[in-house]
């Protein structure tokens, strides 16, 4: 009996022990992850969290291991400035499109995913933090900057959207929040940017070094947002489009630009990059810099350095080769001549590429290849890299890689040894000073308050660094010139407003601004509809490629036959002698209707799944104008 009782005791003991043990056991947390309860207690925690927000803001850049890779030469594809070689851009070619909203939108989803991440940070960053110092301020500022960045992306694409400012739970009513107005979203973004500006360190100070966001970048971003929303509301109200904001002409936003930019001018003055490299081309070589940290006027950039980043790289090799997109006549027509006069008023000869290179303002030649540079494969540092032995871009699709318009990119030529352009030591620029300067000039021109001294500290800083004639307000005002919306201008605007537009278009070509500029200026359809993109004058290409002696003199070793061009078969010119890259497509020959965008295309559709989900809940998420 005693033994029996002992056994029972043992069993009971075992039960108690095991139960207790298993309870603890099942409640243990993983050792390799960090607990929310103790995180954000140090600057290091803040830093590694905001580190994780950088990737989502770097959409323009592609990586690939090793030598092959991509480039950023196609930033303006999908606008009137640049085309893919032989196929019209789908988004500008919408005849017959029914306008049915897509079910889902990656842009919508990704933006809100990222906003949740920033909300979580902004809500929790100070909870466990003992004391704040400059460093913690800086990282908190980065959080605000990134939230602003993603909301601006939503504003660009969708207009007003629901503003969510906390990491929601599954039961939150705000999950079904209605759309806020454009103005509300813009103000929210600007408020976040103000928080960012207050907290961030200036470039090169504190943690704001080597690729981190800084106060300079946030101020420029604020100028970008204020100018975008201000001009959007101003021009859409003026043109009474369905995208206008009720009872607003945008001037309150436009007025925010100058005080913001003046803070930058106070710090940076006229300091921008002026090192022209071997060709003395400071505008061109800005996009080949290897050290953004020490480059004046470069505020935010992505660091590429093969010493640090060993797994991936950014390849600039193809940036200037015949490998895809080419510029259009629309862009080239915008350049002022070397005297600072619009081409329509100019007496200079401007037919061949070389004539243009010699007689247009210097940024033309620093943006687009001209044959007087000689055979491509003899460029300094690029010899024996497989570049073409020709001085002209190849425009014949069957003869290898080509640039169908004949206007091949030269902007951002990365020269020098192979590790520079093939293995990614050139940094990629996101935000630069020039944008802030031109934003101030544009806002003040629209508001009618611009003066010659404003121009001197903005436009003329940019012109001065390339040796272009300074902009003179009185001279411009005296021009007898008409501006056409087709070319991206405001026909009812003053000369100075339009000349600032021209300046912006030229300075920022292929940095991804063009489409949004056309949209905020409310001339998207005017600029796009009916446009049949053209290239350079065909004749000089025929003269060159059909003369084997020239090809051989330039270094061709094999047969010249594959490169010979038969006009009207391989390529075809329009009646003005300009290359028509789409000559095989009926819509793009003489009399064809060309590109077409519907007025709804100013904004993306709100994805129908979201509208349906709100509907199921008895709430409303409104669709954008023109979408079904």
């Amino acid at each position, binding site marked *: 009996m005693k033994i029996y009782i002992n056994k029972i005791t043992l069993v009971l003991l075992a039960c108690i022990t095991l139960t207790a043990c298993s309870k603890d056991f099942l409640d243990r947390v993983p050792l390799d992850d*960090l607990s929310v309860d103790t995180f954000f207690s140090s600057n290091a925690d803040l830093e590694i969290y905001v580190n994780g927000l950088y990737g989502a803001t770097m959409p323009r850049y592609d990586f690939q291991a090793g030598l092959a890779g991509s480039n950023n030469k196609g930033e303006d594809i999908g606008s009137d400035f640049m085309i893919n070689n032989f196929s019209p851009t789908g988004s500008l070619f919408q005849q017959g499109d029914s306008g049915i909203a897509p*079910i889902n939108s990656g842009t919508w989803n990704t933006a809100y995913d990222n906003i949740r991440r920033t909300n979580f940070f902004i809500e929790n960053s100070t909870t466990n933090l003992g004391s704040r110092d400059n460093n913690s301020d800086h990282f908190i500022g980065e959080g605000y900057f990134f939230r602003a960045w993603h909301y601006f992306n939503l504003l660009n694409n969708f207009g007003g959207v629901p503003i*969510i400012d906390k990491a929601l*739970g*599954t039961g939150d009513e*705000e999950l079904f929040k209605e759309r806020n107005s454009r103005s509300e979203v813009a103000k929210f973004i600007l408020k976040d940017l103000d928080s960012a500006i207050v907290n961030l360190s200036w470039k090169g100070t504190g943690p704001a070094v080597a690729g981190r966001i800084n106060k300079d970048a946030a101020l420029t971003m604020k100028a970008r947002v204020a100018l975008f929303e201000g001009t959007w509301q101003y021009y859409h109200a003026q043109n009474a489009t369905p995208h206008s904001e009720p009872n607003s002409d945008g001037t309150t936003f436009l007025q925010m630009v100058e005080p913001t930019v003046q803070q930058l001018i106070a710090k940076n003055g006229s300091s921008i990059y002026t090192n022209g490299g071997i060709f003395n081309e400071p505008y061109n070589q800005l996009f080949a810099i290897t050290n953004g940290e020490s480059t004046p006027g470069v505020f935010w950039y992505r*660091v590429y350095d093969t010493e640090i980043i060993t797994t991936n790289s950014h390849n600039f090799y193809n940036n200037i080769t015949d490998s895809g997109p080419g510029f259009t006549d629309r862009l080239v027509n915008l350049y002022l001549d070397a005297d600072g006069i619009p081409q329509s008023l100019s007496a200079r000869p401007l037919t061949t590429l070389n004539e243009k290179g010699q007689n247009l303002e210097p940024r033309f030649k620093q943006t687009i290849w001209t044959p007087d540079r000689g055979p491509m494969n003899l460029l300094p540092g690029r010899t024996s890299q497989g570049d073409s032995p020709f001085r002209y871009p190849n425009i014949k699709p069957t003869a290898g890689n080509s640039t169908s318009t004949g206007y091949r990119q030269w902007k951002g030529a990365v020269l020098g040894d192979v590790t520079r352009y093939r293995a990614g030591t050139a940094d990629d620029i996101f935000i630069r000073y020039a944008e802030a300067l031109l934003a101030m000039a544009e806002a003040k021109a629209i508001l009618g308050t611009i003066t010659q001294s404003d121009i001197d500290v903005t436009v003329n800083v940019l012109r001065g660094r390339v040796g272009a004639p300074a902009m003179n307000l009185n001279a411009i005002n005296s021009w007898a010139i008409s501006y056409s919306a087709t070319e991206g201008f405001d026909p009812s605007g003053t000369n100075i407003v339009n000349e600032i537009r021209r300046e912006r278009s030229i300075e920022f070509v292929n940095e991804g601004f063009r489409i949004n500029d056309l949209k905020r200026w409310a001339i998207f359809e005017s600029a796009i509809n009916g446009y049949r993109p053209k290239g350079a004058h065909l004749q000089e290409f025929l003269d060159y490629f059909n003369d084997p002696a020239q090809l051989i003199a330039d270094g061709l070793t094999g047969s010249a036959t594959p490169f010979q061009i038969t006009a009207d078969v391989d390529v075809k010119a329009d009646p003005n002698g300009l290359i028509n890259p789409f000559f095989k497509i009926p819509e793009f020959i003489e009399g064809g209707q060309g590109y077409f965008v519907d007025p709804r295309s100013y904004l993306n559709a709100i994805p129908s799944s979201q509208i349906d989900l709100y509907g199921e809940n008895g709430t409303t*998420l409104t669709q954008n104008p023109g979408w079904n």
Partner: protein
Amino acid sequence: MEFNGRYDATSRFRADKRWGFFPSFSGAWNVAKENFWPVKDVISGFKIRGSWATSGNANVNALGGDNNFYLFSPTIPVNQVNNIALGGSTITAARIPAIVPETLTWEKPTSIGIGLDVLAFNNRLELNYDWYQRTTRDQSGPPNPLPEVLGTTPPATNNSESETRGWEVSVKWQDQSFSVLGKPFKYSLSARMNDYVGYVTKYEHNGTGAIGGQWTPGEVFGQNRLYTSNGIIQNGTQLNNIVPHTGTWIYPGDLSIQDTNGDGVINQGNGGVWYSLGDRTLTDSYSYPRYRYGFSLTAEWNNFNISMNADGVGHWKRFSGNQYIWGQGGSVFFAPFFKETTDLGYWTANNPGAFLPRNGYHGKNRLPTDQYLLNLAHLRIRNIRLGYNIPTHLVQKMGLRSLNVYASGENLGFIFYKSFIKLDPQLLAASSGEGYPPSRTFSLGLNIGL
């Protein structure tokens, strides 16, 4: 009769959702053993089986399977990012914790099974039959959709219930009782077949089916939803009469799709819900192998033996838009690269009867249509083996205990297989044809017993 009970807990759920009790019960009755069984000589076994079993599944699919052990605990994942450099070095990055699935608990599959085993004609005939229904209660289906402003995947909940019904039957005939030319002849023949279907019985959210990608009560798993093809457009006249796809250009040589819902556009509807399919229709074809069947044969006579296995699938239809099936790469400039598809032919004005639409990797021609459904039903010879045992008296002369020679072949080919691309069906289903098919093997062998 057997009864079983389990009381299980897992760390994967929150403390108050952690425990589950899972009883089960089974029984069998061999009626032929009862005294009243009238035909004991003919049918010696007649066993009726029945079972009812519950179990708990904590490896809920929606949670990423086995890898996520700490669902209840909101933790901040940290990783190294090697392609971004800040402040002079690549970065360590922390990320937002996922939403904790607070209510998540065990999925509770309940199975009912009925079976019958028959043994007859002096054990020469053996028949087995099974029927089962497995109901997964509290199943963690796709998370209930929430607006994307949430900014993350909604947490898993036990929001659904699904059922699987299946059956399995096998028959075997074996005989060792007679002889041929004075030598005993033994043989057996068997055939088997099984099938199952699974369908959703409850899904909490999807009353109206507003949103795609989620389950719908009544939805059958693996049922194909297809566009109906009108065939390849031959000329401009036909081109003018077709209903266009949104946002693409159609030329002769492209596929014409039927506007089955008559709304003037070809699209997939406003969701993946089975009754909101746009111009796709629910077909009576299934994308997983149904009616799997097989045959086996063995025979032995006078030191010779032979065995053979064949198996197949009765119904299996899949669509794939993959380049391994269409023989074209990602660009219109790419030439067709497989002989199989080139032989089938791409449409051109000079080859209007071609099987495939015009050359080029056009998404609009790769919409899942009835026309290009791969029919993966087949019957194949899995293996054949012939053997001969060298007679004992010869073997003993060589000083051995036994000696046996054989020849065998594996994967010997299809008795029938109707897919327009004749790649191995398993390979087509698993990777759309990319990879190596099962190899065909022939072997000759010698077994020596010392």
